[in-house]
Every structure is written in C-alpha cells, then in structure tokens.
C-alpha cells in the first residue's frame, strides 16, 4: 500500500509537516485559525538530533497490534488504513503501550488521535504535499 515515507537525507527538521498535519485534521481551512494559540498535536512527529531529522507517523501495519490491543474497538481498518473511531475511544492508552513506532497520541479532546493518511480529504496526505524539500513522499515501496 501507499505509505508516507521520509527521505532522511532531505529532511530539514522545519516541522512544517506537523503544522500541515494539524491543519488537515482540524476543522479549519486556514492555518492561522487552526493553529493560533493551540497546543499543536500532529499525527506525525519530527525527531531532531543535531543535524539529523526525520518524520515518523503511523505505518498502517498490515497486521496492526494497536487494533489487537484496543479495548474498545475504536481502532479498526478502513481498507488498508488504520483509523480510529473517536466516539468509541476511552483513552485507555493500550495502543500507546503496544505501538512500536509511537504513532498514536492523546488528542486535544482527550481521546486518541492518529494518522489516517488524510483519507477523508482524499489524495496526497497534507504533510507530504507541504514538505518543502521533497523529504516526505507518499508511495508504494
């Protein structure tokens, strides 16, 4: 399946992807409205260490342990994409506990949030679309 990959070589650590992600998952269409005064919780993370940077988000595992560990049935697959039903999630933390990528995190509303590859807005995930240096790619590997 198509996933978001990072070409570490080109990641600048600018963190724009995190903001584009946040915007894409907010209800706003404008970056200012979406982010102003907010605690930015994006579905992908940039890890920085000196000059090395890379982004990491949900790998949409073929066999996702988060779904197995989910105590509420909130996590499930839509096609090949692992998505979360925020109505069902009770934020028990089980998925945080088992995800080896650290891809899930608490949302502003107190339940879990995760990358859903921007499937609701269709097309290319916004993190990839907004990457200034072609470091993030959305492709089949």
């Amino acid at each position: 399946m198509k996933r978001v990959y990072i070409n570490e070589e080109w990641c600048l650590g600018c963190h724009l992807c995190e903001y584009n992600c946040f915007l894409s998952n907010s209800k706003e269409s404008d970056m200012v409205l979406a982010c102003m005064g907010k605690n930015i919780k994006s579905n992908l993370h940039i890890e920085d260490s000196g000059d090395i940077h890379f982004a990491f988000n949900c790998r949409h595992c073929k066999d996702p342990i988060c779904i197995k560990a989910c105590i509420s049935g909130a996590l499930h697959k839509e096609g090949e994409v692992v998505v979360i039903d925020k109505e069902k999630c009770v934020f028990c933390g089980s998925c945080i506990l088992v995800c080896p990528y650290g891809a899930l995190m608490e949302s502003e509303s107190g339940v879990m949030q995760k990358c859903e590859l921007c499937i609701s807005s269709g097309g290319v995930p916004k993190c990839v679309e907004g990457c200034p240096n072609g470091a993030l790619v959305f492709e089949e590997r």
Partner: protein
Amino acid sequence: MRHVIIGASFAALNAAKAILSNESDDEVVVLSKEKDAPYYRPLISYLLMGKTTEEKMRMSFPESVKIILGTEAERIDTKKKEVIASNGKRYKYDRLLISTGSRPFVPPFKGLDRVSDEIKTTFMTLEDARKLNGMLDKDKRVLIIGSGLIGLKSAEAILERVKSVDVIDLQNRILPAVLDEVSSEYLKKYLEAKGMRFHLGLSVDEFSEKSARLTDNSTLDFDILVLAVGVRANTSLFEEIGGKTGRGILIDTHSRTSIPNIYAAGDVTESMDISSMASKPIQIVPNAAFQGETAGMNMAGIEKTFENAVPMNATGFFSLHLITAGTYKGELLDLSDENGLRRFYIENDELKGFILTESAIERGGIYTSLIRDRVKLSTLDKNIFKAPLLMAFPKERREKIEKEAQ
C-alpha cells in the same frame, strides 16, 4: 471444517477473524454463557463513568460467525469431538478453542452471606456493571475489597457518584500486580487526593449486614460492597477432560493445549512471559488477542506462533494515565520528573520492564518493543530513556521495523 469457540471476548474475536481470514468456508460457532451480545469487557468501568454506552461497547464478530448467547458449555466429549451445552445441544467440532476467560474469586469471608445480594456485587461483566449502576447514590458509602485493576477501576468509576469509597487490600500496597512500590505509592497518593480511602495490609475478619470488621479490629460501614479480590481462570471444563493446567490452561506458542484439536487463548491460559522467563497467566487484552489469533490461524491449518508474550498494562485513573510492561527486576533507572514517572528496569543489557505515567507515557510503545524484541541496549543511543525516539535506533533496526509493518 467446524470450529467451536467457548467464550466470546477478545480471544474469541481474534480467533474467529483469523479462521475466516483465509477465505475458507469453515464454520465458526461461538458459545457465550452471557445473555448479552459480545461486548468490550474492559469498558464496563467507563460505562459507569458515562464515557461510553452499551451501544458503543458492542463487539462485532465477522458476519458468518454463529453466536449462541446464554449458553454455557458444560462438558467436552473428546471422543465424539462434541461440546455439550447448557441448552441441551451438542456442538460438534473439528477444532475447539477454549477462551472462557476468568471469573471473580471470592474468598469465603465469614458472614459474607449476611450482606444482602441487593447491595453486593462483583465487577466483571456488563450485568455486574448494570447492577452496580443501579445501586449508586450520592449518599451511599462503598467498600471495595481488593485494590487490583478491577477494584480500582470500579472505585474510579463510582467515586464521584457516591458519598465515599473505601478500598481494602491484604497487600500493603495498591495495584501490586501492575506497579512497583514507588509507583504504587505514587498512585495511592493521587487517588487519596481524589478522595479514595485505602486500608492496606488488612482483610475482613467478619461481615455483618452493612459493616465489615477488619483484621485490625476496626470496622468499616458500607452501603454497597464490591468484591474485587482477584480472578481465577475458568479451567474446570478443561480439567475435567484431563487437560494440563497450572494457574490456567497450559498452552504452547501455537496456543495448543495438551489435548489434540483443543486450543486455548486469553485469560484462561497460562503461558511464557519472556520478560521474566516464567510461565504465568497474562490476563491482558493484547495477550488474549495474540493468543486468539494464533489459535485461529493454527485451527485453520496455517502455522503461526506467538512467542513474545509480555505482561503489560495501560490504564488510567481520572487524568493520571499509566503504562507498564514487563517485570520489575534488574537495575532500576529512574528518570522520573515533573512530567511523570519514568522507571525502567534493565538486566543483561536488555530492558525488562518499565512504568510510565502522565505525559511520560507518550510513545511508550517504543519501549515495549524493546522488551518484546529483547533489543540489546548497547546498540541504541543512550538517550533512548530520556525520550522514546526511533532515532535512538541504529538504521538497521529502523529499517527492520519499517519492514515489519508491511
């Protein structure tokens, strides 16, 4: 082929999915002794808190699975390969999965029968939750026996809906199966600040109608009694046919029991914990899911093993979230700070266990994977314990886990 599954929770769900994932036309029959349609059991405390509804709690099985509710398996006939059920029917199987889970263990307290059934309950099923819910009232005093996960989650669920909550435990600390001493104390302080009262190192000598005399001779009055001392695996069905059990049904890495064509998975089993290298019941959702899936695949004739079971828990009380995994042995690395506890147990260059709380739980699964994959810590960046970053991994491991996703 016909598969019969006894029990209808996580192990059963994952087994049924696994069996049917191979696009076979195998038949799957699930027997559930509960009258309620399958539901996500751990949510019962969240139901009391209004964080979910019975509707949302429903667990949906694949459509073709035949679920028979309110029907208990009473006997297994291994010769005829049949399960004799409480409805009088006999269910023929080619492969059988026992995923009967566990039941509350209630010690024979003196005078417990004096406490009316109207005001006492265990806390294990949706039915229990409904019953408890019916009892709650702003002026009721609640006594909970047991400070394990069930006891504390029930305490959390009702604290704000009753007058008081007292918790007693024979152990001298709370949640001893999940936490180490320091984190036990940490959680206790937090819960006390929320208003819970703990009476530790104590048991009940004798109950009277609405009061308990404790082993230190003090008495606690109550209007509601919740019995949450512990659980026992429902192994009797299996024991009767001569299957090997310990504290649960003994299974191998294929989820096979000692009897051919019979598999077991979930809370009913005892299996190897690789963090302590000891065989023990690992009664947690992921374990039930893994074992169930493993059983299902093997029942369908596709070999699959589950080899790295590790005890782990994710839970939370009010706004204090905790995740823990592994065993607490070896050298302690304590990096706790104002963001929460960060306690790591390291032995032989491997992470054996950890306890993280509050915002320190973020991305904690990265640590769990270190335990499960038995990663040599010397191959990682030393900063891994300051923050769980994939960057701490050598490129090969990053590439490996990337591949594993696919």
